[in-house]
Structures are given as structure tokens and as C-alpha cells.
């Protein structure tokens, strides 16, 4: 079972990996549910949904491959023009995206990893441990999920200004660590994925709570941790309003801040804006394409099954 790494032939096309050699990981997925082969109608529906999912992304690239003039004309372009590389090049240099990608990776990586860790231990406590005030505290967590985020921005900014954190990455990282959703998510997962008996058994062996977390909870929570990590990473990566307020293009921009100036001018250049949007999304899409199998597998295992 050290196969986690060895079963990752990353760039090979999905078709070949799917055929046979797979399924070693979870015999469950072969057993469960779909024994029947899908009929043609199922394929048609799938094809439609796949096109629906991918078309807007492809069209972003098409738009980024044209120029402003062409985008304003009719009918809209259906195929790639010759400007894609030029536009990407301008966007990359103009927005200084190299630095921005570096910053965003740090921000999204740190906050995802930390949220996962904190949410797992807190989720475990809420799911499996008994303590005074548990119900009330869980209500606070769920209540926090319901606070509309747009408004906290102003008082939060006053704080960050007091701390003199503007233009520094911790101004983005630290507030993003308060993830009530993460705690809720891990709690829901651990309730069903972690049998009480295993914890009891560890306790009987005299394990301290930390040891239980380390040797029992983390292994059991791993799939959900991976999913939560991905969710948080994507969310932090794409966040705009807050980073835009505390960072600047001359002060540690994230990708979304960096591309906010693209296409400027009295005639906003739509194709450049699209190129920026594409570049901002591309790293995530690449990760999805390369590790798609693992990510999907992770979501499948880590999904809250109730």
C-alpha cells in the first residue's frame, strides 16, 4: 500500500490509466453500485455535460486568442485566433505573474494546510469527544458559517491597518484560517468514518488524546483532509475582495490582485482581460488535469457520506 506514489503516472492520458490496472486502491468502487454497463443514452448525457462544463473554459481561451476588435463583432468567434501567445505574454509580464504565482501558492498552501490541520482536530473533538459546552460551541461554529463575509472586510481592514500588515502575506493568510466550514466538514466526516471502537481500543492501550489524534484520527481522516485541503486551496487561490484590499501590485500581490489591472485603458481590452483570467485559472486547471484521478479519488473517499 505504499502505492500512493507509485500509482501516479501523472501525465499519461486518462484512457490508458483507466482501463485495467486501476482499482487496486479500493476494491469497493468495483464492487459498489455500478455493475451494469452504461447504455448509449448515458454516454450522450455525459457528453453533453462534459461539453457544458468545458465549453466556457475553452471559450475563455478562444477569447484570449483574439483581439478587442474581433470580440466586439458578430457572430462571436468560435475558433482560436492567432493572438493567444501574445496576449498571454503581455498578461504575464504586465501583471508580473511570476511573483504573483509564488505568493498565491504560499498563501493558498499555508492556509489550506493550516485549516486542514486545525479543522481536523476541532472536528474530531466535536465528533467524538464529550465535553461541556460542546453543543453550544458547535452552534457558534455553524453560526459563523452564516455570517455574510462582505461586511467583515471593513473592520478587519481596520485591524490589519493597526497591525501594519498591509502589503504583507499574513494579512491574507491569517484571516483565511477561520474556517467554520472546515470544522463542520471534518466533524461530519469523522462522525461516520471513525468508529468509536477504534478510539476506545486506543484508549484502553493507554494512548493519550494526542496519540489518538496522531495514530487514529489522522489516518482515518486522510481522504477528507485531502478534499478539504483542495477546497481551501482553490477558494484562497481565487479570493479577490480581501487580498485586493490588503495587498497591491507593488506589495506582494496574489494572482487575482495582479491581474486586476489588465486590459486597462479607455477601451478595456477584453482579450487581455480574458488572457489574465485564463492565466489565473490555468495553474489550478493544470493541477486538476494532471492529478485529476487523485483529486477525484480523494473527493470520492473524502466526501461526507453521512
Amino acid at each position, binding site marked *: 500500500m505504499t502505492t500512493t506514489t507509485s500509482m501516479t503516472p501523472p501525465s499519461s492520458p486518462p484512457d490508458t490509466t483507466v482501463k485495467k490496472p486501476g482499482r487496486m486502491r479500493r476494491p469497493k468502487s468495483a464492487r459498489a453500485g455500478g455493475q451494469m454497463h452504461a447504455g448509449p443514452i448515458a454516454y450522450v448525457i455525459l457528453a453533453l455535460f*462534459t461539453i457544458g462544463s468545458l465549453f466556457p473554459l475553452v471559450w475563455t481561451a478562444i477569447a484570449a486568442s483574439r483581439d478587442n476588435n474581433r470580440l466586439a463583432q458578430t457572430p462571436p468567434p468560435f475558433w482560436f485566433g492567432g493572438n493567444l501567445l501574445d496576449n498571454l505574454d503581455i498578461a504575464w509580464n504586465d501583471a508580473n505573474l511570476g511573483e504573483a504565482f509564488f505568493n498565491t501558492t504560499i498563501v493558498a498552501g499555508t492556509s489550506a494546510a493550516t485549516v486542514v490541520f486545525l479543522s481536523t*482536530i476541532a472536528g474530531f473533538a466535536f465528533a467524538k469527544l464529550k465535553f461541556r459546552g460542546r453543543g453550544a460551541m458547535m452552534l457558534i461554529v455553524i453560526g459563523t458559517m452564516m455570517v*455574510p463575509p462582505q461586511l467583515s472586510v471593513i473592520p478587519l481592514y481596520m485591524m490589519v491597518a493597526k497591525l501594519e500588515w498591509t502589503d504583507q502575506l499574513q494579512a491574507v493568510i491569517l484571516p483565511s484560517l477561520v474556517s467554520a466550514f472546515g470544522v463542520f466538514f471534518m466533524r461530519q466526516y469523522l462522525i461516520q468514518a471513525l468508529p468509536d471502537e477504534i478510539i476506545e481500543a486506543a484508549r484502553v492501550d493507554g494512548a493519550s488524546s494526542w496519540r489518538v489524534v496522531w495514530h487514529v484520527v489522522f489516518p482515518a481522516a486522510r481522504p477528507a483532509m485531502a478534499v478539504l485541503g483542495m477546497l481551501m486551496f482553490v477558494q484562497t487561490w481565487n479570493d479577490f475582495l480581501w487580498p485586493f484590499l490588503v495587498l497591491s501590485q507593488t506589495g506582494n500581490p496574489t494572482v487575482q490582485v495582479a491581474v486586476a489591472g489588465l486590459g486597462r485603458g479607455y477601451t478595456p481590452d477584453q482579450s487581455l482581460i480574458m488572457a489574465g483570467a485564463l492565466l489565473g485559472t490555468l495553474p489550478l486547471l493544470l493541477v486538476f488535469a494532471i492529478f485529476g*484521478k487523485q483529486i477525484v479519488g480523494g473527493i470520492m473517499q473524502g466526501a461526507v*457520506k453521512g
Partner: protein
Amino acid sequence: MATHDTAAPPAKEGGAAPGRPPAGPTGAERRRARLSRRWQRDMRWSPYAFVSPFFLLFLAFGLFPLIYTGWASLHQVEMTAPTDMHWVGLRNYTRIFDDDFFWNAAKNTLTIGIISTVPQLLMAMGLAHILNYKLRASTFYRVAMLAPYATSIAAASLVFVLLFGRDYGMINWALDFVGIGPIDWQSDKWPSQIAVSTIVIWRWTGYNALIYLAAMQAIPQDLYESAALDGASRWKQFIHVTLPSLRPTILFTVVVSTIGATQVFGEPLLFDANKGASGGSEHQFQTLGLYLYEQGWVNQHLGRASAIAWTMFLILIVVGIVNYVISRRLRASS
């Protein structure tokens, strides 16, 4: 960290340790007593240790903004001078009762919430069902459906605005082939709400489908087999085996999507970015999240916006409680 934990205690209580081996049974008992005392302390306090990081962060970065907006909601205060407050009591709340724009936004939030959540979850369910068959290239479909999720709201909205163009957008162009006249996706009420919901649906359907799929694969096969033995059709199996087994998952997705739906704001904001945050000429797709943003950011009325935020919060809590009570009743009756 784990090794630290186990290594630390003996060192700490090292004073007693050397005398231990020859001490015989009484020493062992004492040790056990000490261990159990420690064990009890551990049992008692560790839960708090586990939840405290979250709550500390919450205190630092969540509570202050909440209290500030709560306090601001009782004042007349502008963004141009956020510390310059004039006490107005509950006026910012009472005025909400006569605020047509608020109630319009509340209605839109509800309808957009329904239009975006219901089809999204139904389609996700159907997709999951199909993906649960044996398929060629199944990973490809799964990854493709997850791709929209990686797209930021801003990028997605940008593209959909162009696709939903009235005169030359691709969607109207396609509808024209089936004989449907050009639809004004931005200024007509229902089309605009559908368009905004489409962005939400596009981004989230694949993700929810995978969650359902995961849950479906966890259903024991023998349940289906025995249902088949009883002569249940595929549809009946779906209704009587699949759906009941999925109930907790469905509940989770419904809760998360509902909370998400009440806070929708980026999509309607960017769907008509040139009209500011009014959500269309007649506010036809202005959601509560967007109205709050308009009052706070565009009109700069922090006090009013805070009151709207708190009212939203309170409404959500009421909805949550009602939801809880109903689902409890349902569970009790079934």
C-alpha cells in the same frame, strides 16, 4: 510531535522515576494512579485544546468584525469616516421593514437560491447515477465536470456575460436555431435570474455529483440484490434503496448549498458590472449579499449595511432552526 508527547512525561516527573524499578507492586500502583490521574486530566481538557485554535483565531479575526458591525448597525456611520459614529438606536433595523429594496433582494435571493440549488442538486444526482455505471473513460468525465469548480467567480462571470449577450451572445444564437427569439438575459427578470443561477450551477454541479457518487458507491450491493429479488425495477431501486441511503449526504449538500445561496453576491455583481451593484435596472437580480455590498461599498453607508448583514444573519438562523425542527419531526415520524 507524537514522540515528544510520550517522551516528555517521564522526564518531567523524573524525580520519582529512578526509584521506580525496585519499588515493587506498590510503586506500580502508584504509577498507575498517577497515570490515570493524568489520563483523566487529558480526557477532560484535551477536547478544549483541540477546539481552541479555531476559537482563538475566531476571536482574533472573526469576533471583532462581528461585534464592530453589530455596534455599527446601531449608528449612522459612513465608510469615509468609519470611526465617526452617530447613535441612532434601532433605526437601521426598523427601516428595513419599509425598505422595498431589501425585501425585493430577499425575494430574489430566495428565487435565485431555488433556481440555482434545486436543478443543481437534481442534476448532480442524475449525473452521479450515470457515473455509477461501468463507463469507459470515467475519470475523464469526472475531472471534466470538476473543472468549472477551479474557475474563479470573476473569470466565470466574465465568460457568461459574453455568452448570455442579448444580440450576439452564443446562447441566443443557439436558441435561434430552435426558433426561440432573442432573450434579453440582462434586463428581463426571470431570464436574468436564470442566467445568474446558471453561473452558480455551472461551478458546483460536478462537485456535488462526485459527492453523491461517492455516497452511492458506499451503499452495500446486497441491498440492491435483495431489492432486485423482490422484483423492484431499476427506478424503484433508485427510490427505495439509493435515495434513503443518501439522505445524510443530501442533507449536507442542501445545508451547504443553502448557506452558499443566501450569500450569493459575486455572480450577480459581475453579471452586470457596468450598472454598479444594483443588480439590474429594476434590481431584478439583486440579492441580499449584493444589496449589502451596494449599501456598504458603493453607497458607503456602513451602519445600514451592517444592519442588513445582521438581519440576514438572523433570518438564516431562524431558517436554520425551522429546518432543524422540521427535519427532527420528520425523523421522529418516520
